[in-house]
Every structure is written in C-alpha cells, then in structure tokens.
C-alpha cells in the first residue's frame, strides 16, 4: 500500500484529482483520459493548467530522478494534463473520432525519467 496520498505544501487544492488523474505510467495516463467524460476532463484540465507554472517551478527544485513521493504525484498530475489536452485542444471530445474504445494499442514504455 503506498503512503497516504499527499501533495507538497501549497498544492492541497489539487488533492481531489489525485485518485483519478495521477497516473504512474504513460499508458495509465492515457487510459485515465480515455475513460473520463468531457466535463470531468475539462474540470481537471482547467485546474491543473491554472497551476502548471507553479508545478513546473516546484518540480524543478529537484532532480527528476529523485523526486520525493508527494512531488512525484504532483508531477504525474501535470503529465496527465498532456493527455487531457488531446481531448480539450485537439478532439473536442474525450477520444479521437472514429477510433474504437477500448482498443489494443499499448504504450509498453514511455519517456524517461518519470515513466
């Protein structure tokens, strides 16, 4: 069991998003966006985008490979924002038009560090 999900000081307003949006892998973050409705994606997108520069400044206090657990969780929220942007900024809907869901494409390895 991981420690109780916390976020660094100053980011506790984002805690409600952690269970559904702090994905540990690129595949998980993709699935998170795919399974949510547009209003849910929009709410997450708006909340994280508003704090994005703060999150970047916080994370850059550390080396990416040595993020403390709460900071890693916060950064994972920011990484899932990239997924939310696909729905909000590209498709205007949760998933690509004419693509099946569920589907069989898998991201077996994501970018690094912070998988």
């Amino acid at each position, binding site marked *: 069991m991981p420690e109780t999900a916390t976020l660094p000081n100053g980011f506790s307003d984002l805690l409600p998003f952690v269970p559904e949006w702090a994905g540990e892998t690129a595949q998980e973050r993709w699935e998170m966006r795919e399974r949510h409705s547009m209003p849910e994606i929009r709410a997450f997108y708006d909340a994280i985008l508003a704090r994005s520069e703060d999150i970047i400044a916080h994370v850059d206090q550390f080396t990416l490979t040595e993020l403390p657990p709460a900071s890693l969780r916060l950064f994972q929220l920011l990484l899932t924002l990239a*997924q939310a942007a696909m729905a909000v*900024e590209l498709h205007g809907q949760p998933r690509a038009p004419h693509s099946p869901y569920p589907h069989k*494409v898998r991201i077996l*390895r994501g970018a690094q560090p912070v998988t």
Partner: protein
Amino acid sequence: MNEMPTLASICTPNLTQRAKLSTAPVSADPYRSPAYFELERENLFKRAWLTVGRVEQLPEPGSFVTQTIEIWNAPIVITRDRNDKIQAFYNVCAHRGNQVVLAERGTASRFSCGYHSWTYRNDGTLLGIPDAGNFFDVDKEKCGLKPIATEVWEGWIFINHQETPEVSLETFLGDFGKAFAGMVWGNSTKSVFFEARLKANWKVIADAFAETYHIPTIHPATIGTTFANKINPFSRPISGEFWGPHRQVSTFGNPEYAPAENAMVEKLAYANIDTGNVLGASGTAEMQKFLEHSAVNPTRSKHWAVDVTWVFPNFHIDLSPGGFWSHRFWPVSVNETRWEAEFHIPDATDARGRLQQELYVARLAEILLEDVTNTERTQRGIESGAFDTMQLQDGEVMIRHSLHHVDKWVKAATVAEALAAD
C-alpha cells in the same frame, strides 16, 4: 515580397514511372489470400533478412532479449556474449523443446532450462546435463542452443531463417545500405515503445505508414495541419528514392505550422524553445550530424518533414528533424499482425522538457491509434470481395513498390533471382 512557391517546384512528379513501376490497379489478393500468405512465409520471410531491433537493447556482455517470430513459429533469444558477439538462437532446449529463457530481457552469462535444468552458456554452448550418466551417448557438442544467422548493420540486428543465408546482409541491403552508411542514430539507447496486435494483413499496416495522402483525412486534428497546407492540400511527397527492394519517400511539412490559439498545453510545454522540433534535441552536435547525412532530406528541401524509409520487407525507419523512429510489422496470419513502433528520445532534464515529451507521446498515441485502427476496417473491406483490384495514386508509390517486390520474392526460385534487377 515572398513569392508563393508552386506545387511543381516542391514535389517531384511521376514517382511511379521513375521507379519503373506499372501504373495499373494492383491486385487485392496478396492482402487476403491464405495461399499467398503461405508463399510469403516460405519464400519471403524465411529467406529475407529481418530486423529485430538495435544493438543498444543489449548494452553489455550478458545482456539478452527474447521474442517470438510468429511467421517462423519460433521463440528466439538474442544475446551479447563475453566477446561482445551478438547472436540470435532458437530459444528451445535441445532436450525436449521447452523455452530455456523465460524472461523478456535481462543479464545472464548462462541460462538454465526450467524443465530439467539443462544449462547453456549465453554463446549457446550446452554446459551441463543433470544426471548425465543416465542418458545414452548424448553428444553435448551437438546439443547447444541452435544458432540463427545473425548480422549487424549500422547498429540494427538482422536475422535470417536460412541456416546458411543465400545472400549476406550487405548484399541484401545493397545500395540502400551504402546510402545509409554512417548514419547517426541519436538517442538510440532509450525508446518509447508502442505495440498492438491487429486484425489486418501485415502489408495493410505497413502501407498505412507509407503514404501521406491519408493525413488530411484521418488526422485532421492531430497532424493534418503539419503535413499539408494551401499549396499542397493533399500532402503529396517531395521526392522518392528506390534501391532494389528498399525505398524511401520524403514527405511534405507545412512551414507555417503554429500551435492553435486554444492549444494552451502545447504552448506551455514549448514555452522555452522556438523550433518546431517536438523531440527537443535538435540543438545537439549529434543531431546536427544526423541532419547533415546525405540520406536525410536527400533533396535538401525546405519543405521537408519526414523521410519514410521502408527497408524490405517489414521494417520502416523514419527520419525527421527531431531524430528517428521505426516500425516493425510482424505477420501472424493472413489477417493478423503484431505491430511495434519505437521512438527514440533523450532523457528530459527538467519538468518542462519532460512535459513536452509527454505531450509528444500523447499526440503520437492518438496518431498511431487513428492509423492502426483504420487498418482493421480496411482489412474487412478487402476481405469482403467487393473489389479485386485497388487504385493507387503517385503519392502511394511505396505501396506499389512493396507489392511488386513481395511478389518477386514469392515467385522467385532463389534469393539471387528475387534480388535481380527488373
């Protein structure tokens, strides 16, 4: 005042005729005939050199990877031994056939079969048989892991099903191999890896990544505006190169591309760079050397986006301003394929750089999903029997070139005959 360039000044016409190919419709049978698929298995995939990835996936002596070559019905293991020799073997115990190595990858100097503990060194030598005295004159020399013909070209590992391949890898790659000699494969130690098993013939999937005519239609939101513009609305290729059975087209990029007004996350991720380079690595000396290679953007076009290079039969290498990626299309049955795509990117060093990569991966995932799920619909249509031939336009020349050479191999009695000039 800038003059608007014309399409004719950007895109080379008549690529099909230049490649000395017919312009007639092509047969649909190679995509749906089980008999044709069996000929491909025996005469193409069991005679051609096939890529299984790069040497960097075996970083040190003792490194190994396993995989299944479905079209051979063969589990294989590839090792780097203590002499740095890279060699593929059948991952089959000489005793009763179990797979000796079960891990997907790792480091080990020896492998022990999980059935009766027969033990092999990573160079294939059989080291030990438990209770050997109870066997009957076993010749240990003949009971090593069976090697598979393996050669390395520019860091790419190739294997061949023939015990003694009819032609060397160098001969097989021919002028293509020479054109790509000395290529700088940047960031090749790390990759973002996609995989899917799709209900479509391997050529349907390879074809999907071989032309840009589809881009404005299938990818209107993801990359439609990066590969087409008013001058080139249907994304015609800039040029084409053909080397024996291997081929390349250079695709068109829209130099005016800019993030859409509402693309807030894209702007956030790219706030600290002023190039359109999604991989964020073009500033390096290594990347400069890559871009200067004569096989990258071979016509030095300022409208260049990507060189889609199709190494015969089932391997694509794509060269772009941000580096390279590759696809491998592994046939499973006439209408089933395992597809692998591997994108090489550097490790991010800060939060914004890492977000930029995540955005790149997210967009890739959307594009690839649009591409490959489209292939299953295409396969259903081809199998329906609604038509017997397909119309191909000039920008789809690589598909025609592929079908031509697949057919040559399928029908040729020898590899030399398959590789002979038309």
